[in-house]
């Protein structure tokens, strides 16, 4: 199992039945593949659909039905199409249960940076700032390090996405919950020790007793 699959499988365990869920582009979108069959949720794409379905078979694409990355999708039975004001109204208004996003950096306050690297990459924040500010539950899913360098830091040095403590960080090495006094290490990844996590993390981790391994 590669790092991304470990992360997607573990995040999928956090998704509650009968909720509204927004998955970011890339790694977060893989989470949909690992939901148990009996867990029914509606996926929102912020460009305007509640009830996003899988990619259609070749030749059956609808040019007016895409996800927020511009990829062709389908709509599940019971889906609704909405405009951008309602879509972001759902996000900011407390109607979106869970958002799963990627991250560039995250720090001991639980603050996320994921929208720009000054001087290098300025894609724009798109919907990320609204999602992190507004969703009930914010899950950051990312590989633990970038080219061997920690991404979980004392303090983010990239521009923040929001001044909000995220709910959970899931990497291939660890599950970490930002709490009032720092980052609580809740689980370790397959074949990973607590010491491995500590050495791959710049931020201080709170360790309370025995840390269990992810059950995938």
């Amino acid at each position, binding site marked *: 199992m590669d790092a991304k699959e470990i992360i997607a499988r573990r995040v999928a365990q956090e998704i509650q039945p009968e909720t509204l869920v927004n998955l970011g582009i890339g790694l977060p979108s893989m989470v949909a593949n690992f939901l148990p069959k009996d867990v029914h949720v509606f996926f929102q*794409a912020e460009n305007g659909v509640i009830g996003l379905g899988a990619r259609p078979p070749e030749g059956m694409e609808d040019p*007016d*039905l895409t996800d927020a990355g*511009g990829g062709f999708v389908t709509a599940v039975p019971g889906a609704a*199409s909405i405009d*951008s004001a309602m879509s972001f109204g759902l996000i900011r208004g407390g109607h979106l249960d869970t958002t799963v996003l990627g991250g560039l950096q995250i720090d001991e306050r639980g603050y996320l940076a994921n929208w720009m690297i000054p001087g290098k990459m300025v*894609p724009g*924040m798109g919907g990320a*700032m609204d999602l992190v500010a507004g969703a009930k539950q914010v899950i950051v899913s990312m590989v633990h390090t970038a080219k061997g360098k920690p991404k979980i830091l004392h303090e983010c040095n990239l521009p923040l*996405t929001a001044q909000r403590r995220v709910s959970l960080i899931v990497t291939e090495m660890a599950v970490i919950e930002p709490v009032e006094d720092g980052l609580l290490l809740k689980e370790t990844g397959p074949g990973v020790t607590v010491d491995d996590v500590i050495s791959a993390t710049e931020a201080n981790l709170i360790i309370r007793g025995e840390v269990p391994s992810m059950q995938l």
Partner: protein
Amino acid sequence: MKQAIKADAAADLIPDGASLLIGGFMGVGSPHRLIDALVAREARDLTVIANDTAMPGTGIGKLITSGCVSKVIASHIGLNPETQQKMISGEIDVDLVPQGTLVERIRAAGVGLGGILTPTGIGTLVEEGKQSITVDGKDYLLETPLAGDFALIAAHQADYVGNLEYSLTAHNFNPIMAMAGKTVIAEPHTIVPVGVISPDSVKTPGILIDHLLERAH
């Protein structure tokens, strides 16, 4: 009743230097024939207000490539490297706005509000230079209305009153922008006789539409 006009006639209504609200999300639900006509007439110095600048060769990306645009107000330019290059070289001024804030600023302009208060952007670069207001103990940013000289709206279907119906994720910014342009030009895929679109299905009432493009051929 409205007389449907050709795309080049519509593009001639739009002077150089105009600010344009353009519907669409990565090219989906963008007024493609209007964009092509603006490129063909070599429009210059346009301000484009839109969710994104799509990709080179698609939708608003064509306006960027053709040098029609001097300013962009958008939430995302990540999939158009040309916009990023022109931003770095100083050819295009880019103002990045969170997506939910962008749509609400446009909505505010269209519905007569003096701005909106949003929690999005508090404690980030987006807050710089803006007023923060505390309501019931929670901090919000005051974001101002954002109107355009023109709104270029793509719709699935219109009638000759100008009533518009949209399709799936091609709604996006279109119904909101249709309220916020001083002059509103609608580009429907098809046009049906008045009465065919059920009143319940009309998302943009025809009274908002100044010019109706002929149907796609």
